[in-house]
């Protein structure tokens, strides 16, 4: 092979190898750090994986927020209207967190379907509901009223 061609071939192979390694690494890291969203109904049905970081959300159930007397530990339930999931969180809750309002928790689900959250997000202004929560509520209400389930 002509030396210049040989050199070019080496460069091309190097680029292809480097690009494949980078693509593989990116795909792997995306898989590791992608937090999937599950509705309380899906969690109740056992569709959500345990001991993996996930997101779950819905409306905070009225009267479900329990605060510890001596720390910032909080327990509450979120519901999509059909099922609910219990969340524990230790730390400051967002400004717009309230009973009857939407919230999304990121954390790890245990075998008893208790979600230990490391982050809780509430809607970030008065008129905004997180789209995941809005869709979860909508699909749950369709299921309970017996209508065909919409595409979510």
């Amino acid at each position, binding site marked *: 092979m002509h030396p210049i061609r040989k050199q070019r071939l080496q460069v091309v192979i190097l680029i292809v190898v480097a690009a494949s390694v*980078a693509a593989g*690494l*990116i795909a792997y*890291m*995306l898989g*590791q*750090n*992608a*937090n*999937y*969203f599950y509705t309380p109904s899906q969690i109740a049905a056992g569709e959500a994986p345990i001991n993996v*970081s996930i*997101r779950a959300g819905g409306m905070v159930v009225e009267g479900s927020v329990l*605060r*510890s*007397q*001596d*720390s*910032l530990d909080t327990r509450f339930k979120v519901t999509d209207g059909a099922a609910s999931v219990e969340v524990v969180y*230790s*730390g*400051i*809750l967002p*400004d*717009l*967190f309230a009973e009857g309002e939407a919230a999304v928790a*990121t954390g790890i689900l245990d075998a008893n379907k208790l979600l230990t959250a490391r982050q809780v997000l509430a809607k*970030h*202004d*008065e008129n*905004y509901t997180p*789209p*995941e929560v809005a*869709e979860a509520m909508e699909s749950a209400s369709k299921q309970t009223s017996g209508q065909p389930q919409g*595409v979510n």
Partner: protein
Amino acid sequence: MIAEVGHMALIVALCLALIQMVAPLAGTFLGHRSWMNLGYNLSLGHLLFVTIAFACLVSAFLNDDFSLKYVAQNSNTELPSYYKFSAVWGAHEGSLLLWSLILAGWSAAVALFTRHLPLVFTARALSVLAAISVGFALFMLLTSNPFERLLPVAPEQGGDLNPLLQDIGLIVHPPLLYMGYVGLAVPFAFAIAALIGGQFDSAWARWSRPWINLAWMFLTLGITLGSWWAYYELGWGGWWFWDPVENASFMPWLVATALMHSISATEKRGVFRSWTLLLAIFAFSLSLLGTFLVRSGVLTSVHAFASDPERGVFILAFLAMVVGGSLLLFALRGPAMQKVANYSGWSREVMLLINNILLVSSMTMILIGTLYPLLADVLDLGKISVGPPYFNFFFVPLMVGLLVAVGIGAFTRWKRTETGIIRQNSILPLSVSLLGALVAPLWLGPEATALSESWLSGYSMGAALSVFLALWVILVIAQDFWQKLDGRLSRFRKLSASYWGMQIAHTGLAICALGIGLSTVYDQSKELRMVPGDSAQVAAYRFELVDINQHPGPNYLAYRGEVQVYRQNQLVTVLFPEKRTYNAGGQVMTEAAIDASLTRDIYVSLGEPLPGGAWAVSLQVKPFVRCIWLGGLLLALGGLLAAGDRRYRRSRAKSQAVSPTSEVVSA
């Protein structure tokens, strides 16, 4: 009435832009000098009419004209007038008008300051800029008209500006960011003009450079300010979240940075021409993509976007036309494989290539991480959010590599550098920075964390790495100054503005990296339940919550805490964090209280009231966090200095005398 004037002004501006898009460009092919000359005056006229439209909207806001839908939604009579002014770009329609105004401004600046360039080139560049103006004017008039009326019944009171946006940072942040975003349209237009004309020599690169530097400077300032704003306004002390909106501004910055470096090689050595052209195209395309991501609602929900697709589809189509059109043009006219490059090994060309690979890789990984959740949602693969660990995993090593390269790059020469020179120049900075990196954490660790068990137990490799990188870059720069001066201070004046710009920007990068590293490693924080009278220890500081009282503000009611901060029983500062409830929408806002200094920030914010008179309180000590924004400011200053280099102005006089394409050899 004033709204109709604004609306008409927008339509006139659109018409002027349409003529400017067609006439000068057509003139360059038909050889009509008068058509080509039209570009200059048309862009000034366009600026005039967009300014009139903008002024009309400002006056509607200042006079509380709630018959305008946009004003009614985003303003309120109680709002202080400077926030009424900034509310003009507080939401979608107004920020597009600001975008158009700034584009008109850049375009007029090109018309005013490029008279010395060949007429054919300027005429084409102005036509390209006008085409972008047409796109945005149509977008506003067809889908997002800020002058839309709420008739016949105008509300008595407006909806109020989002309290998050009621802040000095938000008065300046969007205009700066847009100056940067839109400024990248100028090198884009120059690149397209060069492609149309088939001329991509050193002269083209030299004409583009000051514009790139200026746009980059504004983008840097905008991002720095945005990060600083998020830090003190969002109330929990984070300064970067890898949020899609932030990524949207960071991606064009990375590519623009790569462009600044690659174009220097194109100008000085005539290499990387195609690559530089591509970067100019991509930098602006990413600006448009950022606008699309932030403005179309696609981030909030792909489905909401699909159900009201008008705006998103427009931007997407515009984006496709810009990217597709320019890439097609590039494929047809791009420089054929140029002369065989003659550089090797440790040349400056290779270091710039490494810089470009690292920056473009960073951008690609951010782009994938930002778009993947959208793609997954569209394909029904589930609702995903990509966490910061993904971004940090790639970004940190890439930037470590970049900082090492910045140091080596400072003492490499064009074409070829003797290994002896590399060895000779790196010995001193390398050994001093290694030594400093080993020793610094021994002192920084106990100082920052106040853990005094054993001075080795808190030793942080992350801190050692940050100190090493920062020292390495700064020492190499210092050594370079020393060699340039060669013992004679009078030589200071001989150093060019672009040399100063480069070294200041690189110093800024090193300081920013130091701030990021040390504030991440040594950050100490506690979230606590406190009643007045309680105290808590964080790092070397003792925080005492004295009291929490009600405190009325102009358009809100606040709970205001008083927190005394002690260090070894000496009062350091008294902080007053607030929790505000705004009158208009009842929104609740956290106003953190910060005691800032170069070596550490003390950051206190109130969470929520708890039963029993207690409050959730967040107490944080953040060493060297200021360095992040100080570094950002130095980067911007560097960009400004480099843009003002006399070389770009000198070439004006020269290019009129000699032929415009002749190469100006400069040191």
